[in-house]
């Protein structure tokens, strides 16, 4: 359970005193504490584990075995249960509040949630779900989904969820790889007032996943006709009167599988361990967000984004979490603001895209609501630009703005907040404790400067591995091959002399469109169905007028005899919307006589991106057809006015 701390003192200050005692030295500032956290990683993580006061069993030592960031493993002799740690505390506290678009509000107490988790966990065991089994979910952001995820964690099953508005092919690309035993799903979802039946989607998933043994509905809707048994959670629950005993699993026991799509191949299935996820989230929540009992956290997310898992873990710090099932702007343009105000949210997590929406809609939050309890605003999902910090202060609330950034790959943050420290507009306040974040420059790894974000120290929330990657080769290629000895994340970063940080964008071909991470490979997969298209490249063009500052551009090389006309462009957009998502729909489609291709025959997103954005093309020498870049630059639809 989370201990109350002296009024007015941040958890970071309390922890710093604990760290000084452990290190037998004084830390005059955050930089000194951070330096110790990476120079003596075992001491830092041992001290933090003790500070966090988690429910564990086994031995704390050894803290770290194996060498370096690629092979280091934390707490191999320690055992814990993620769900147990999220559900400790007084029964009567409201810990989850769910809102829907119609304004219906559901409060769930810790006692009710624990009882629900335990009865569902017993039921899952009765259905044959065992530790390590994958359970996939097509789920709305509701209290029922929270309960189901924790029930899976309780029995050691591995949870993986997507939002219900994702297209069936994109879901299949993810779930088929996991061969789940159970599919949990809502029967329908409502967005912007329109209700969509998920029955056809569930039918297609069931047909495509032979390993699937049963489907469990997370609501009371009608069940589709399937070849496997379909239950409701009410039918699965088992109210055994015997005392529940939490099974505690190895620190690295798989907890979540997250997905990350890149420029080639199917999405990576990133396996995150229970201990690393829990410890990292508790560290971020308490030390970097000062989250604790009495706090109310709202972080805008769907069940398909890592921030859903991140906000779930806030239960372990004693905070209440608030969920929104639906649109931020329905039925009213300021519906989300109303939720934040009415729910007494103390920490509001949002995105640059939403803040830009408010700004462009001439919505001034402070003139509409009091936000009496709000003390921190967090933003992630895209680069939070300097002027947006000032906008928040002037139009929203004069509270610290934490620009936080990390990702699915580490299910946490590399850069984030530092309670009590001043906020410099445009920057994250701090590098995460325990992470030796550096930048890879032309002169090598540096602790200040601009370059690709790398991490030199082992960290507990490094993925256990990739699912289906038995020899670890794909895992190595994804994160360690580019800069041996370092985790290479794929972001460009600026680190200042005083260790503040600013994310500058993606360094690889992955795009961030309106806050949604888009892997071009998913777009290419859809385009394979168009005979008129010989080749394609999906790239980002910086555009200050675009929501999020980046517009998605699709470059096509047409097949012999084919032309790109308006009906074809609309058919391509429609297919991308239906088979991937709205975020995958390009703002512009342009046909070119050829696409930049390397001598080894690989289409080059990097060259096209550089040319499109007026930058020097770094790999021009590696192209066999550099003249294609001239045609690209000259294309009228690709010129910003």
């Amino acid at each position: 359970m989370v201990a109350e701390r002296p009024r007015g003192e941040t958890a970071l200050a309390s922890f710093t005193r604990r760290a000084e005692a452990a290190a037998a030295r004084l830390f005059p500032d955050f930089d000194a504490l951070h330096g110790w956290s990476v120079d003596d990683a075992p001491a830092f993580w041992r001290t933090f584990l003790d500070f966090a006061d988690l429910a564990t069993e086994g031995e704390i030592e050894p803290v770290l075995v194996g060498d370096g960031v690629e092979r280091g493993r934390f707490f191999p002799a320690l055992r814990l249960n993620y769900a147990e740690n999220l559900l400790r505390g007084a029964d009567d506290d409201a810990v989850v509040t769910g809102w829907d678009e119609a304004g219906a509000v559901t409060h769930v107490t810790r006692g009710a949630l624990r009882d629900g988790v335990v009865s569902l966990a017993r039921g899952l065991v009765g259905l044959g779900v065992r530790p390590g089994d994958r359970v996939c979910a097509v789920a709305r952001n509701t209290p029922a989904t929270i309960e189901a995820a924790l029930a899976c964690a309780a029995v050691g099953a591995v949870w993986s969820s997507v939002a219900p508005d994702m297209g069936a092919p994109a879901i299949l690309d993810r779930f088929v790889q996991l061969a789940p035993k159970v599919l949990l799903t809502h029967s329908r979802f409502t967005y912007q007032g329109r209700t969509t039946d998920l029955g056809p989607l569930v039918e297609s998933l069931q047909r495509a996943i032979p390993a699937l043994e049963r489907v469990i509905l997370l609501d009371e809707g009608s069940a589709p006709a399937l070849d496997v048994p379909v239950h409701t959670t009410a039918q699965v629950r088992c109210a055994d009167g015997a005392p529940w005993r939490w099974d505690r699993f190895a620190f690295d026991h798989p907890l979540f599988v997250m997905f990350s799509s890149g420029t080639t191949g199917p999405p990576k299935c990133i396996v995150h361990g229970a201990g690393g996820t829990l410890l990292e989230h508790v560290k971020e929540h308490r030390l970097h967000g000062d989250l604790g009992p009495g706090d109310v956290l709202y972080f805008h997310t769907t069940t398909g984004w890592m921030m859903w898992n991140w906000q779930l873990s806030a239960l372990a710090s004693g905070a209440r979490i608030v969920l929104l099932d639906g649109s931020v702007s329905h039925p009213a343009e300021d519906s989300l603001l109303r939720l934040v105000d009415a729910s007494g949210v103390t920490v509001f997590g949002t995105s640059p895209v939403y803040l830009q929406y408010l700004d462009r809609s001439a919505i001034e939050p402070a003139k509409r609501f009091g936000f009496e309890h709000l003390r921190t605003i967090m933003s992630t999902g895209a680069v939070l630009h300097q002027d947006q910090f000032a906008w928040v202060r002037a139009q929203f609330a004069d509270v610290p703005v934490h620009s936080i950034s990390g990702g699915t790959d580490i299910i946490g943050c590399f850069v984030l907040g530092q309670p009590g420290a001043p906020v410099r507009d445009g920057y994250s306040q701090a590098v995460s404790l325990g992470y030796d974040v550096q930048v890879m420059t032309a002169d090598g790894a540096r602790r200040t400067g601009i370059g690709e974000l790398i991490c030199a120290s082992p960290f507990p929330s490094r993925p256990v591995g990739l699912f289906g990657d038995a020899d670890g080769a794909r895992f190595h290629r994804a994160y360690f091959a580019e800069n041996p000895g370092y985790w290479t994340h794929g972001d460009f970063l600026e680190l200042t002399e005083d260790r503040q940080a600013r994310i500058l964008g993606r360094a690889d071909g992955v795009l961030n469109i309106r806050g949604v991470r888009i892997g071009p490979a998913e777009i290419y997969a859809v385009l394979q169905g168009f005979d008129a298209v010989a080749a394609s490249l999906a790239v980002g063009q910086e555009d200050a007028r675009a929501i999020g500052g980046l517009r998605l551009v699709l470059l096509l090389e047409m097949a012999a005899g084919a032309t790109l006309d308006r009906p074809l462009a609309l058919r391509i957009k429609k297919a991308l919307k239906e088979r991937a998502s709205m975020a995958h729909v390009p703002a512009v489609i342009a046909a070119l006589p050829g696409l930049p291709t390397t001598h080894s025959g690989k289409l080059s997103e990097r060259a096209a991106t550089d040319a499109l954005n007026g930058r020097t093309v770094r790999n021009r020498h590696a192209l066999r057809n550099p003249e294609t870049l001239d045609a690209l630059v000259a294309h009228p639809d690709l010129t910003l006015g």
Partner: protein
Amino acid sequence: MSASPDPAPLDPALRTVIVEWLDDNYHFGDADSLITDNEMSFLHNGILDSLGFVQLILFIEERLTLRVDRGDLSPDNFDGMGKMVRYLVAHPDYRGV
């Protein structure tokens, strides 16, 4: 400024500009068939969401070279094809498409 309902036919060229934008950005060829009635609400019939409205207004301002007073940004003026076209045609800077 607000535009009152007018039984006169909507400016067809302006209507086409809006339909094409809806097709390019949201409905990909289906916009005209979804707008079964010029007086139907865009918001309540899944034609456009609030974020889409912002994007559409920004597009219209650039396309028609006029500025929509932010105080006029209300469903009364924009939530529907008829309302939108009548508002824009009545705009003092409107010179046609």
